[in-house]
C-alpha cells in the first residue's frame, strides 16, 4: 500500500509539473535559483578575499614561515650557515634572508620616509614573487650595487592627484634618487625598476641588494629576518615544528602569526560579515521561497479537496506536493549552480580589485552544501505545511473555500 501511495503521489506530482502553469513553475525555479546564487555568491567572494590575503602574504610579503632573531637579539647572525641548513630540509623550497631598515628617500623636492629592504634577488625569487612584478625597468641582481627598485606607491606620479598616498613624485627608471640609510649614510641610487605587486605594504618599500646594504651598514652575514617558502601552503604549523626539529633555534613564525593583527582582524571581520550575510540571506530565502510555494499550493486548495473527495489519501496528496517542490528545488539548484558558475567565470576573467589585490571568488563546499540543504529544507517545509493543512481541512471547505 505504501508503494501504491508513492506511485500515485509521483503520478500526480509529475502531471502537475508537466501540465501545470508553466509561468508559475519558471518563476518559482528562477526565484530559487537566485536565492541559491545569493547564498553561494557572497561567501565565495569573502573566501576569495581570505584566500587573497593568504596568497598575497605568502607570495609577496612573508613566504610561509619567517625566521626572526632569537630572544634579546636584534639581528640573525650566521645567516649563510642558517640558510644552508634551511635549504637542506626536504620540504623547503627556498629561503631568503632580508634586512629591513627605515630610510629616507629624496627625489627632486619630494622627501618620503619608508622601509628599505635588502635582499639577495636570486634567493628571494625562490621565495616571493616580487621579482615578477616589475612593471617598468628590471628587478635587482645579486651583484647590483648603486641600484634600487622602488615600490609603485612609494614612487608615485608626477601628478600627485593620481597617488594613493604621499610619494616621491614619480621618479623614472634610470633617474637617481637620494636614500639616507638608518645609520645616516646617504647614497644616490639609480632607479633600476618599479615594482607593482598590488600589495600595499610591498609597494610602499624600496629594495636594494644585500651587498649594497652590507656596504652601507658595514655588517656581514646578518639579516633581520629569513623568509622561507615551503612545499605546500596551509601546513605552516606543521612546517614550523619541522624547522624547530631540524635545529633552527631562531624564532619561527608562520605568515599568519607575522601578519597577526591585520590579516587576522580582516579575516575575522569578513567571517562575521559572511555569517551575518548568510544568516540574513537564509531568512530572506526561506521567506521568499515559502511565500512563492505557499501561494502556489494554496491556489490548488480546491484541487486538494477534490482529490480527497474522490478517495485519495491525504498522505498521498501531501507526498505529491512535497515531490513537486523537490523537483522545483532541484531545478532551482541546478539553475542557481549554472548562474553562480557563470558569475564566478565572469569574475575570474574580471576580478574585483581590493586594496590587497585582485580578488577571485572561491566556491567552497561548505556554503554550497549549506545552500543546497537550506533550499531543499525550505522547499519541503513550504510544500508540506499548506498541503498538509489543506488536506486536513473539511473537504467541502477546501472545495468551496471557507464560508
Amino acid at each position, binding site marked *: 500500500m505504501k508503494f501504491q501511495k508513492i506511485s500515485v503521489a509521483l503520478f500526480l506530482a509529475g*502531471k502537475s509539473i*508537466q*501540465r501545470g502553469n508553466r509561468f508559475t513553475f519558471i518563476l518559482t525555479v528562477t526565484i530559487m535559483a537566485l536565492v541559491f546564487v545569493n547564498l553561494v555568491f557572497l561567501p565565495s567572494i569573502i573566501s576569495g578575499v581570505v584566500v587573497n590575503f593568504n596568497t598575497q602574504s605568502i607570495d609577496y610579503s612573508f613566504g610561509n614561515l619567517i625566521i626572526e632573531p632569537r630572544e634579546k637579539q636584534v639581528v640573525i647572525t650566521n645567516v649563510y650557515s642558517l640558510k644552508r641548513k634551511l635549504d637542506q630540509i626536504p620540504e623547503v623550497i627556498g629561503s631568503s634572508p632580508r634586512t629591513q631598515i627605515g630610510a629616507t628617500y629624496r627625489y627632486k623636492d619630494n622627501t618620503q620616509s619608508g622601509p628599505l629592504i635588502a635582499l639577495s634577488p636570486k634567493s628571494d625569487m625562490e621565495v616571493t614573487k616580487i621579482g615578477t612584478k616589475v612593471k617598468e625597468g628590471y628587478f635587482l641582481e645579486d651583484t647590483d650595487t648603486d641600484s634600487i627598485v622602488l615600490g609603485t606607491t612609494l614612487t608615485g606620479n608626477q601628478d600627485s592627484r593620481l597617488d594613493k598616498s604621499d610619494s616621491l613624485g614619480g621618479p623614472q627608471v634610470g633617474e637617481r634618487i637620494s636614500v639616507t640609510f638608518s645609520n645616516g649614510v646617504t647614497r644616490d641610487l639609480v632607479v633600476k625598476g618599479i615594482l607593482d605587486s598590488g600589495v600595499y605594504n610591498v609597494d610602499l618599500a624600496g629594495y636594494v641588494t644585500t651587498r649594497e646594504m652590507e656596504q652601507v651598514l658595514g655588517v656581514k652575514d646578518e639579516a633581520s629576518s629569513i623568509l622561507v617558502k615551503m612545499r605546500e601552503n596551509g601546513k605552516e604549523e606543521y612546517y614550523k615544528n619541522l624547522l624547530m626539529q631540524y635545529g633552527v633555534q631562531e624564532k619561527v613564525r608562520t605568515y599568519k602569526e607575522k601578519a597577526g593583527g591585520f590579516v587576522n582582524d580582516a579575516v575575522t571581520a569578513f567571517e562575521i560579515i559572511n555569517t551575518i550575510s548568510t544568516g540574513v540571506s537564509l531568512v530572506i530565502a526561506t521567506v521568499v521561497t515559502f511565500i512563492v510555494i505557499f501561494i502556489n499550493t494554496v491556489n490548488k486548495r480546491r484541487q486538494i479537496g477534490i482529490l*480527497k*473527495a*474522490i*478517495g*485519495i*489519501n491525504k498522505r498521498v496528496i501531501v507526498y505529491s506536493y512535497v515531490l513537486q517542490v523537490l523537483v522545483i528545488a532541484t531545478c532551482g539548484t541546478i539553475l542557481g549552480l549554472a548562474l553562480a558558475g557563470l558569475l564566478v567565470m565572469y569574475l575570474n576573467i574580471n576580478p574585483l580589485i581590493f586594496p590587497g589585490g585582485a580578488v577571485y571568488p572561491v566556491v567552497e563546499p561548505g556554503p554550497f552544501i549549506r545552500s543546497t540543504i537550506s533550499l531543499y529544507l525550505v522547499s519541503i517545509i513550504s510544500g508540506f505545511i499548506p498541503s498538509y493543512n489543506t488536506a486536513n481541512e*473539511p473537504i467541502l471547505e477546501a472545495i468551496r473555500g471557507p464560508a
Partner: protein
Amino acid sequence: MINATDISRVYRMGLVEVHALSGVSFDIGKGEFVGIVGASGSGKSTLLHILGLLDLPTSGFLSINGIDVSAMNDDERTEFRLNNLGYVFQDYALVQELTVLENVSLPAMMRGTPRDEYLHKSEELLNQVGLIHRMHHRQYELSGGEQQRVAIARSLINSPTLLFADEPCANLDTKSSRNILELFQKLNAELSQTIIMVTHEEWHEAYMCRVLVLTDGKVADQRACKR
C-alpha cells in the same frame, strides 16, 4: 444499504446557529434510484454530503452497507469513499491537470488496481458515457455535459455500491441533462446501481424510483415516482 437515524446538522454562522438538518431518518435499499428534492435551503445538499461522507452530522447515526460510518475517522472515511462510494458534483470537480482517461483512472490507481485492468475499465466506462473519442482530452476542451459524463465515469471506476449525485444537471442544458439522467437510469436498471441524487427540477423525478422531500431540514414527504 443506508440507514440514517435522527441525523442533524447545525452550522454556526457567527453567533447564529443554523439547523440545516433536524432529526432526519430514512432507509434506502439496494438498487434504488432515490431523489432528494426540496426548495433552496431545505438541506438536501447537506444531507447528500453527510451520506457521501464529505461532511459529518452534528448528531445521529448513519450506517452504510451495515457499517457504522459515523464513528469513522478522516482516513477511514477517505478509504471508505474510495472503495464504496461514487460522487458526482454539480460543478464536475475534475482534476484540471489530468486527461479524461487519467481522471477516470485515478481512483482505481489509488485502490491499487493493476494498470491494464483499470485502463481497460476506464475505456469501457468512457465508451458507456460516449466519450471514448475524447479520452486524451483535457477538461478545458470539453463541454459541461461532457465533463459531467467524465465525472460519472470516474465515480463508477471502483464499482461503488452507492452513487451520489449533487444536482448533476444544474449547469447543463435540457438535452445534456436528459442524457445524464438516461445514463443514471440505465445504470440503475441494468446494473442495479444504487443512486441517490439531489435535484430541484420536478421533471427529473420521472427517472427515479422514490423521492425524499425535504422542507426546513426535515423529511416532509416520501413518495414513489411514476417511472
